[in-house]
């Protein structure tokens, strides 16, 4: 009897202490020093910013945040769970900022408790990569041909429509095999947004979104999945993030932009794509850009924060630190873009970003002067 009681008591004690330890750990997440957590809990908490969202931004963000931490001692904990997930976490206010490759849609906007501002932080592009081993030249694509290929209307590489824009190139009679992303992604969103803009047929049959109902082709998980499908299949063609294609030396084609020029995707041509008149809210799609030397399948990536920073129990100090971080990201932080194959923001985008940051308030008062 006694033994049982003691056993039960011990078990209870273990469970309780275990639970307390867990609670303790939770409280300490992200705080480097736990010893003085009682004394310094508020300032410690204020020194850690939580973010979540886009996987595309993650390599650049990691670099930026570690550099910023060296000079300013601010810790940023960024979870790259995908743009949709980041927006959901921002909606439930479990993070301080979100990051997304697509501006908020109407449904996401209405789920939010207050207005959110979009600050452009970087730009990326989607390239058309293909596998034609015997081909030496770089292929040209026009929007019309691209849409018809992805709709399954152009089935062979030696189709007259492809031959007409690639004069002098000996095209093989191989079947075209389309590879697309199977997971919902910002890359798919940019690519389908572009196709919807340039092809009314695509817009009515498929539309735009982070996952769509593909009329043809195979789905691969992530950039590496699509790249794998392309590499393995002669005649394979698909869309891949520019950074991934550059790092892995994949062949990609030139694409005709709105001005009629065939543009090779590169960091410079993506930055040029963003050098257009950007609206005051920065919610602009760069796809099919008006810039004559801009690559047409480019897109901005945004950091999302609430316009009114006084919510939950946030301190003014924390809000200021976060805004200063974002301000640094769009100015000094841009120097890390090139090495990681991201396109630096265009001057137009930086100006708009600055203006937007000044509209963010704490208790009605602007935070940055």
């Amino acid at each position, binding site marked *: 009897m006694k033994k049982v009681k003691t056993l039960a008591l011990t078990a209870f004690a273990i469970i309780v202490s275990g639970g307390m330890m867990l609670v303790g750990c939770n409280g300490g997440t992200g705080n480097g020093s736990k010893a003085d957590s009682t004394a310094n809990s508020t300032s410690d908490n204020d020194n850690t910013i939580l973010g979540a969202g886009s996987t595309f931004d993650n390599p650049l963000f990691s670099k930026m945040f570690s550099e910023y931490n060296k000079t300013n001692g601010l810790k940023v904990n960024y979870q790259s769970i995908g743009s949709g997930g980041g927006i959901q976490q921002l909606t439930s206010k479990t993070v301080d900022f979100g990051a997304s490759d697509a501006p908020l849609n109407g449904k996401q906007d209405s789920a939010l408790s207050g207005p959110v501002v979009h600050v452009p932080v970087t730009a990326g592009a989607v390239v058309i990569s293909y596998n034609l081993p015997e081909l030496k030249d770089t292929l040209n694509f026009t929007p019309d041909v691209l849409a018809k290929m992805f709709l399954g209307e152009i089935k062979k590489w030696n189709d007259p429509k492809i031959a007409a824009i690639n004069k002098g190139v000996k095209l093989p009679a191989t079947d075209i095999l389309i590879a697309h992303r199977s997971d*919902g992604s910002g890359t798919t969103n940019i690519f389908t947004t572009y196709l919807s803009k340039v092809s009314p047929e695509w817009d009515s049959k498929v*539309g735009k*979104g982070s996952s769509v*109902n593909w009329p043809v082709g*195979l789905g691969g998980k992530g950039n590496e999945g699509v790249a794998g499908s392309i590499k393995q299949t002669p005649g394979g063609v698909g869309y891949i993030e520019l950074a991934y294609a550059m790092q892995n030396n994949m062949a990609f084609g030139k694409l005709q932009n709105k001005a009629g020029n065939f543009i090779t995707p590169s960091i410079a041509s993506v930055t040029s794509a963003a050098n257009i008149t950007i609206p005051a809210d920065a919610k602009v799609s760069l796809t099919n850009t008006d810039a004559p030397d801009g690559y047409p399948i480019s897109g901005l990536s945004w950091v999302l924060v609430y316009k009114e920073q006084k919510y939950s129990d946030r301190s003014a100090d924390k809000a200021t630190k976060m805004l200063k971080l974002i301000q640094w990201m769009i100015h000094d932080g841009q120097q890390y873009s090139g090495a990681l194959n991201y396109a630096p923001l265009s001057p137009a985008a930086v100006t708009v970003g600055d203006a937007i940051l000044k509209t963010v308030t704490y208790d009605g008062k602007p935070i940055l002067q």
Partner: protein
Amino acid sequence: METTANNDLITRSENILERVITSTKIRDAVKGIKRIRRSHRQIRAENVFRRTLTIVGLVTVLLVMGIMLTLIVQSTLSIKTTGISYLWGKTWDPVRDIFGAYPFLLGTLLTSFLALFISIPFSFAVAIFLGEYYPKGWLPNLLKNTVELIAAVPSVIYGFWGLAVLVPIVRSFESSIGVDPVGLGIFTSSLILAIMVIPYAASLGQSMIKMVPANLKEAAYSLGATRWEVIRSVIIPYTKSGLFAGILLSLGRALGETMAVTMVIGNTSLIPKSIFAPGNTMASVIANEFTEADHPVYLSALIELGLVLFLVTVVINMIGKRLTKQFTN
């Protein structure tokens, strides 16, 4: 003198007797009390143990019910908008909010059952080899451990291996039989799944075969039966239900497998035209699209897909249990 001495003797012996009697009485009494105490303690301990078991069991049941309830609650939105036609709708279009699970339902069932058919000969062969022919020795031990290792390898590794090795082989096989040489598709995923589910049926079957009473087998041998005849008419009939349970276990694993399948199935929402065509399974669609499901109906439709997968597993298990019962009778 004599009498007194006798009396003395008697009283002494009586004394001794008494002492003996009393001491045994006391001992018995003490023992009795101890026994009672111990049995009380034992009963208490038994009760505590039983209660713990009941609670843990109930928690497990509650958890499963809870998961089911969550799935139902979260998918109400999708059930309301799409209705029952969700099950046979042929289009999955997140842009237009048209959700039909039929291509994925078909993909899940096709890959799982095809995998089962491919794996059964292997798992039964392993089971019979290890259970009947060579239950001991280093080679059977090696085989046993290797088969068990199959179950321990993470599924993403199978996916990787499938993509790098199996897909090119399947592609050349496909071009030699004259179908579209895609390589990725239902057939490749079934092959991968078949390898992954072998250990489940094999290890259960092997332990069932070892449990066949020796006298039954000896009786058959004494009647002049060959080894094959013993296996066919004694061992297999005796272990039928166990072998079938192993198959069910394998099927359960195949239905829910996500990572390895999604890497080699081709992930298209089109209805597969043949077993060599690309397709998709319910588990793989959920894994692929859940993170970026950016509007409520879409998210709810994905959760409903989870509910359908859950129900399919339950129904198949129930049918399996019924069949197992019929086999044993």
